[in-house]
């Protein structure tokens, strides 16, 4: 069983510098053809300072930094038994290429269902930019399937 002591645990903050080429790569990987996501002139014409960060991109900050892997290792969940159950983003301010984004997360709940056959870990995150402006809040539910 995942110890309830993890509730309140704070992950090491993850700092991600958003660069254009990574956003262009992301757009290509998901088949995004709207030029707003790949062409700086189109993004600026649409009112963005630079290429906008697409809706789910900031989830990657803790993948890049290794914080997500460390959390899974700390919790003792084998990767083969780990599922991503739910994901939420609440958007507060646009993020663009050129921003430096910091994601701070903590574990806000640990619970189980089906007599412990399924365990759930809830991670709540804030993403802020280099000026301290809140960009987005995220909530992730990880599922440990025994």
């Amino acid at each position, binding site marked *: 069983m995942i110890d309830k002591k993890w509730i309140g645990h704070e992950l090491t903050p993850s700092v991600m510098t958003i660069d254009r080429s990574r956003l262009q790569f992301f757009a290509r*990987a998901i088949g995004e053809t709207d030029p*707003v996501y790949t062409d700086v002139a189109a993004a600026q014409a649409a009112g963005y300072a630079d290429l906008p960060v697409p809706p*789910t991109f900031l989830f990657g900050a803790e993948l890049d930094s290794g914080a997500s892997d460390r959390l899974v290792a700390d919790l003792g969940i084998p990767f083969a038994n780990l599922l*991503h159950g739910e994901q*939420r983003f*609440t958007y507060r301010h646009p993020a663009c290429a050129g921003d430096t984004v910091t994601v701070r997360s903590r574990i806000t709940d640990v619970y189980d269902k089906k007599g412990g056959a399924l365990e759930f870990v809830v991670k709540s995150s804030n993403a802020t930019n280099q000026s301290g402006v809140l960009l987005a809040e995220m909530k992730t539910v990880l599922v440990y399937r025994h």
Partner: protein
Amino acid sequence: MNLPAFNTVHVGDELPPLQLSPVDRTTLALFGGASGDHNAIHLDIDAARRAGLPDVFAQGMLGMAWLGRFLTGWAPQRQLRQFDVRFQGITHLGNALRCNGRVVDKFDHDGEQCVRIELRCENQFGQIKIVGEAIVALS
């Protein structure tokens, strides 16, 4: 891109669906690199087999990224207020996902006129892979 007008959008309206190509290994590799998800279970059949699985399978966040594309294809991203999904099933190689959305509510939220969109992502066999909802401001 034009913003749909609040008064022309009605509860029950379906958004134009987004049909994706069948998931292949190249897509998984590209998305792994682009998204930062380097978990070999999605990239390397040997790693998948060591984990007791027959083959690699799609990253959950790939499906969510496609749903994001679906939403921002309907309304500019700056209008998106909330985006919430539950992953219901594994997306296997060869699955061709289709993103659907339906307007289920119109309401005022923090002084903005918003719509709530129910989201559903299913494969060619009608198996639901992701469900969720989004809140989009139309004012």
